[in-house]
């Protein structure tokens, strides 16, 4: 009985450990193997192609577009949500009235799925339906906002919708962290005559480091996974100008019968996540120790 009790924690963790080992790490390994095969419509493990699948993906014009878009989207999405989230959090932290209601309003987009956000913004940004038409009706005839129909600007529409959706969440993270800043340090700083802005710049924002870490990790992996937003907003168009690595992966695996190339692109997405997030996690967590 005592022996059993000693192993209770391990035993309770065991089922989820097995599940994670199979469904996460097992399938990652399977995808890696798949990316080396010559699988077309169905997974085949008897015909081998090797690393030339990766070369094919790298040389594909669509992958080039996908990476470029990913850089634009990733930087602006993460940067935009951090900036807007932080500013909103600082304003809300001024002990204003109706803070509770405002917080809820800003946080509310998070309750929507990316599909809903995508469809709604598609309507708003569509020139024959949304903002542009509204302004024309109100009398500003020369107003133009047709980015979503232009190949070189459509990706910024995806950024706008994404930032709108996620800024409130980042705000909530920062707000919670702001509330956790040690008030005694702030009082001491004020006694020493530090001004408001410099208190924020030198004391509060550095104290938010863990919140930045959380926000970047959460938003970073959302940016790489981002699929539904693009599908709902532009379907990858006009042409394939808003292609992202995730839409590339889906398209090649499931529509084009190029499963091995799809798997290669999935592995490269995994590498992208690791390249972006692992060093950050590593340095942050080491500092904490």
């Amino acid at each position: 009985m005592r022996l059993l009790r000693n192993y209770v924690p391990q035993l309770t963790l065991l089922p989820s450990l097995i599940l994670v080992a199979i469904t996460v790490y097992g399938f990652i390994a399977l995808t890696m193997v798949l990316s080396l095969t010559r699988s077309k419509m169905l997974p085949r493990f008897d015909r081998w192609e090797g690393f030339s699948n990766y070369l094919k993906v790298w040389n594909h014009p669509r992958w080039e577009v996908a990476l470029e878009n990913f850089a634009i989207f990733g930087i602006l999405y993460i940067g935009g949500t951090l900036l807007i989230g932080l500013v909103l959090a600082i304003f809300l932290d001024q002990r204003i009235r109706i803070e509770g209601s405002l917080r809820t309003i800003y946080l509310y987009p998070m309750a929507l799925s990316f599909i809903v956000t995508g469809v709604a913004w598609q309507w708003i940004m569509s020139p024959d339906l949304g903002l542009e038409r509204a302004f024309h009706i109100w009398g500003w005839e020369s107003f133009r906002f047709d980015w979503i129909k232009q190949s070189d600007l459509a990706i910024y529409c995806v950024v706008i919708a994404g930032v709108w959706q996620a800024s409130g969440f980042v705000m909530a993270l920062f707000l919670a962290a702001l509330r956790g800043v040690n008030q005694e340090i702030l009082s001491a700083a004020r006694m020493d005559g530090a001004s408001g802005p410099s208190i924020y710049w030198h004391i509060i924002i550095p104290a938010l480091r863990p919140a930045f870490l959380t926000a970047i990790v959460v938003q970073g992996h959302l940016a790489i996974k981002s699929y539904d937003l693009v599908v709902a907003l532009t379907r990858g168009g006009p042409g394939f100008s808003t292609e992202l690595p995730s839409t590339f992966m889906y398209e090649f695996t499931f529509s084009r019968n190029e499963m091995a190339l799809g798997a290669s692109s999935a592995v490269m997405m995994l590498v992208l996540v690791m390249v972006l997030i692992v060093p950050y996690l590593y340095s942050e967590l080491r500092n904490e120790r």
Partner: protein
Amino acid sequence: MKLTKTFAVLACTSALAAPAIADEVEVLHWWTSGGEAAAVSVLKSDLEGKGTGWVDMAVAGGGGDAAMTTLRARVTAGDPPTAAQMLGMTVREWADEGFLGNLNDVAAAEGWDDVIPPAVQAFGKYDGNWVAAPVNMHRPHWVWGSAKIFSELGLEMPSTWDEFFAAADKIQEAGYVAVAQGGQAWQEATVWEAVVLGISPDLYRTAIIEADDAALRSEGIVESFEIMRKIRGYVDPNFAGRDWNLATAMVINGEAGMQIMGDWAKGEVIAAGLTPGVEVLCDVAPGTQGSFLFNTDFFAMFDVGDDKQMAQQNMAASAMSVNFQETFNLAKGSIPARTDVPGDKFDVCAQKSMADLAEATASNTLFGSLAHGHGQPAAIQAAYTDVVTQHFNSDMSAEDAAAALADAVMAAK
């Protein structure tokens, strides 16, 4: 094995007389819209009359993408359905993988070889054996015109690209959208293949069916991209992402003059309470008179156990019956894959298709449609579509597009 099959056919013929054996087929398809679903239920009740049950596995959405994903999961798990709706190239790819059954006995008994056009047989057969039953033929290269705008401006349906652009100019001057286009890659590819066929059937054969490098870099392909660029000039600025049926609605409502789209657009016309050929005019795309591109829905038959084979053969026979092909295609807007179905119940556009089909078969200008899964395997088809949509949505020159097309196709091959 051979013996069982003979027995199965014998049993299936006798089953026509005496519906006794309870058996069932499981059918995966994406015919879920009103008219299509009604047509499928004709097949279902026909089979039930013969004592064969029907397990419906309808997977909506994505022009069949979702259905194909489901199918892959089922087959990979070792549990294929009895039959699945597929386009021609997909039939070939599944047959390549060795998963399809054999319909030779029922095909011989019903005389499929005599009533199916050879170009369609090429997809329904694999290595000389029947593996799939063709139920319809769509024709993707039509021009649909608003009768209201055409009569108001005194125009005639164009038969050359010069006439097309002259008409488009007049329509645009009168304040309408000249060409209703949906901005999705497959719709742009639908227009492009019609343009190529219109330039010459030989160009279509060499550059698309044979995917010949020299033909892809030829003057003809450059010309096709120049025509695409000109068409782009008559499309309204909001076309990006638009669905095909919304573009058809623009023609139906008299907001736009013309749309280049397949005969499934008729479904929208009929649903709006109008008659194809009357309120919405139909003619083949400029220069394509006498040629015929097709895309056909097949019921591909999977290699199921001997115990299910009789039901499968039953179903194949029903799907190929004159009665079903007529009912189904009246609802679907296509024409029957059998050439011996009488055309008197069909509208004028379908009757024209039926006449043109005979002409194109005779002159050897009947080809599979690239944009709709009958020209090249999915990977190569996508290489064409990528370049066509990239050119249409940017300011790429026609020469660059032709070179990019040849490079992309050669890389995908």
